[in-house]
């Protein structure tokens, strides 16, 4: 069972209450596809991903980025049982999407960097620690049903 401090809970709620999903989601996914190009393997039907400009202008990537970010909402609402919250999505990513769970960490690193850039100095070391802890538990939950 993950133990959350009051600071961690309020920090996570605060970050997501201020989240601009349509900007941050696409920014995080495009960054992941550019910085870790092997992740493009999962998006063969997304059309033009040939270079950074194409990725950043691709509407399917943008839409999917927003979808992924909203996927974190249920985690924000259920911080005390992330394992159960993401069990179904874990099965989906394993059985249907066949995504290597190492990729979850790559995307969460990119999300951290995008959120850091948006929050600026407000993204203190303590806030970063809380955010990364939340993402780490989500990532772990998403990898749990793989076998």
């Amino acid at each position: 069972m993950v133990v959350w401090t009051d600071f961690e809970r309020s920090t996570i709620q605060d970050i997501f209450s201020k989240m601009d999903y349509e900007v941050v989601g696409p920014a995080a996914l495009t960054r992941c596809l550019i910085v870790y190009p092997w992740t493009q393997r999962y998006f063969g039907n997304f059309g033009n991903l040939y270079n950074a400009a194409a990725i950043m202008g691709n509407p399917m990537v943008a839409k999917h980025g927003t979808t992924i970010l909203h996927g974190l909402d249920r985690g924000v609402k259920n911080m005390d049982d992330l394992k159960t919250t993401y069990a179904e999505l874990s099965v989906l990513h394993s059985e249907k999407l066949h995504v290597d769970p190492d990729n979850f960490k790559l995307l969460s690193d990119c999300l951290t960097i995008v959120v850091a850039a948006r929050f600026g100095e407000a993204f203190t070391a303590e806030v970063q620690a809380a955010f990364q802890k939340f993402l780490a538990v989500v990532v772990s939950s998403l990898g749990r049903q793989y076998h």
Partner: protein
Amino acid sequence: MSLNAKDKDAVKAFWAKVSGKAGDIGSDALSRMLTVYPQTKTYFAHWKDMSAGSDPVVKHGKAVMGGVAEAINKIDDLNAGLLNLSELHAFTLRVDPANFKILSHNILVVMAILFPKDFTPEVHVAMDKFLGALSRALAEKYR
């Protein structure tokens, strides 16, 4: 995943913009590492004060970024260029190389915070590759 000419140009161009704040970047990245990855504190048990902005953190942040600056100057042959630093880390400091990745991540986070417009995805990938190559050069002499 070695650095091509485009990566090297991107790294040098970005460094030209940010090197003035190198000390601040190093100190903030180090603080974040110590806070977000507490296991890294084990290497600094001899410091009286590990808090952000403390003397040892500021001083060491500058030292680390001095190493990064040196690596940028020697970007065409990092293994040869960072030989002394690699020997230091391998035989004297004996820092587990997994930690290089951790510090690199925090350097990138600070760059994103301080230079949100300049730290584009293209710059991000070049810097990530560069810090990866730097880390590999630093680990070269370990075994």
